[in-house]
């Protein structure tokens, strides 16, 4: 593999990693901080892609980003509303919204399951013409993705230091404490999920625009992929202050994409991506548990041997 190919691969991994890092940061807020496993992530990712594509096709590539995030916020609000005000189990609320979004996403795409953005202006084509002639020529995807990720990381670092941010963390960290405090958990869950889903939708919107197409499956398995990235990041930078951990989440997304890109080079078929991410999530969650149990398992074996 020549250096050029290697550089190209790294750039692709970096681009895709950074775009999906936005979803990973969304889960960092909802899963790590708020302790809510938001299973509407897949549908919300597609929603962002579909809404973003629709608005871009209407000739407003920048507005597309705002509208996608707005759509994500609404989706997050509904998921949060169902679990805080309608007595629906948190996991179930996510699944229900995810199912409903399938129809909505196709409706947004005008009844079709695929939208083509080939001839449309996107943030990336706009950026491309801006960067032409500079040293960054041809790096427009990277450029936009870095800006988006940096903004989200900075936002989260600042937001999670405010009192509402701390209240969101406390809601996930010690529900008992929150119950008898002046924090209203309904509010923290709603705010947390609205913000998280805005980022998920942004992630979907940017992926669709960079690929110049949306299909209804663009978000399928995204929650598992993002969770895998989040857990990988957590093993490197899971401790410490919020900015460190948020950067860890971004790093996790990049590592995940890099491993995947390399695996593709070794002729792993593309359809294996989701199995790989599923296995990574299993290892990342079950690993520490089994490590915990290991002394006891060994003791049981020793015990049995002594008996025999």
């Amino acid at each position, binding site marked *: 593999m020549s250096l050029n190919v290697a550089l190209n691969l790294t750039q692709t991994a970096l681009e895709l990693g950074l775009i999906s890092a936005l979803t990973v940061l969304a889960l960092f807020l909802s899963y790590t901080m708020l302790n809510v496993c938001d299973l509407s992530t897949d549908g919300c990712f597609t929603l962002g892609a579909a809404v973003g594509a629709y608005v871009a096709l209407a000739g407003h590539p920048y507005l597309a980003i705002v509208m996608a995030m707005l759509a994500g916020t609404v989706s997050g609000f509904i998921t949060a509303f169902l679990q805080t005000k309608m007595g629906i189990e948190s996991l179930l609320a996510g699944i229900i919204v995810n199912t409903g979004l399938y129809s909505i996403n196709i409706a947004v795409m005008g009844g079709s399951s695929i939208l083509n953005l080939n001839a449309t202006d996107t943030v990336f084509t706009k950026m491309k013409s801006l960067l032409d002639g500079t040293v960054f020529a041809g790096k427009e995807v990277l450029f936009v993705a870095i800006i988006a990720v940096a903004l989200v990381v900075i936002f989260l670092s*600042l937001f999670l*230091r*405010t*009192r*509402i941010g*701390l*209240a969101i*963390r*406390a809601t996930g*960290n*010690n529900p*008992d*404490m929150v*119950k*008898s*405090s*002046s*924090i*209203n*958990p309904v509010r923290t869950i709603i705010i947390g999920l609205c913000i998280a889903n805005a980022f998920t939708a942004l992630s979907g919107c940017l992926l669709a625009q960079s690929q110049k197409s949306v299909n209804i499956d663009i978000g399928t398995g995204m929650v598992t992929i993002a969770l895998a990235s989040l857990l990988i990041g957590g093993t490197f930078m899971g401790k410490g202050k919020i900015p460190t951990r948020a950067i860890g989440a971004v790093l996790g997304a990049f590592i995940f994409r890099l491993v995947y890109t390399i695996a593709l080079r070794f002729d792993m078929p593309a359809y294996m991506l989701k199995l790989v991410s599923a296995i990574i999530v299993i290892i990342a969650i079950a690993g520490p548990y089994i490590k915990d149990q290991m002394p006891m398992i060994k003791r049981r074996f020793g015990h049995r041997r002594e008996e025999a």
Partner: protein
Amino acid sequence: MLKIQEISKTFNPGTNNAKKALDKLSLGVLDGDFITIIGANGAGKSTLFNAIAGSFYTDEGRIILDGKDVTLTPEYKRARIIGRLFQDPMLGSAPGMSIEENLILSAGHGGWLSGPSKKDLVRFREALSLLDMGLEDRMQQPVGLLSGGQRQALTLMMATLNPPKLLLLDEHTAALDPGTAEKVIEITKNIVAEKNLTCLMITHNMESALELGNRTIMMDQGNIIYDVRGEERSKLTMDDLLEKFKEQAGRKLDTDRILLG
């Protein structure tokens, strides 16, 4: 300050397990009162606290707090003027967040979108150093690393830094070892006196029930069966109190529990 008018609460109503936990209980608390509450297990002491704090709504009666009828006010809104500590030190703070973050959340000034202010941080440090536990040098450490006693002292600090109108202490030293319990009681005494807080404290320790505060009430079967203050209280001994309990309740008591608890 607090006026409770004939509140009742029945758990599992209409079933075989129906239990009348509060039975037309009335209580008036004056500004600056420090009332100790005793009573056997199941007497309704914690249920009374839950009713005041709003963990559930009472079936009947009214609760008036600081001049406002809070009978149907949700718990988180009442919590703005009520500070509360439980027996379990783990219930009062977030283990994954630092001491500083816990304090900013519970006692920080400013709106929900404000961050930590320098003035607040200085205030927290000073308050923590008064605990004499070395916590002021561990502001950045997660609360999960603290011992039960340290955590309970911190919770007390969190609940009282912005003085609440009413402080509810539900056996808040019962899970601590005797030495630490004594220290936390000492801290409690100082904070309540210094900030002139209105406070209700449940205890199974007859000694602190008489020693602390200006009034003692005894509960049984969801009601107040004895209420003593002033001179009569200052003459009271632990034996008198136990005798009182037997006499008023008119039935045999689990004296071991009430003595040793």
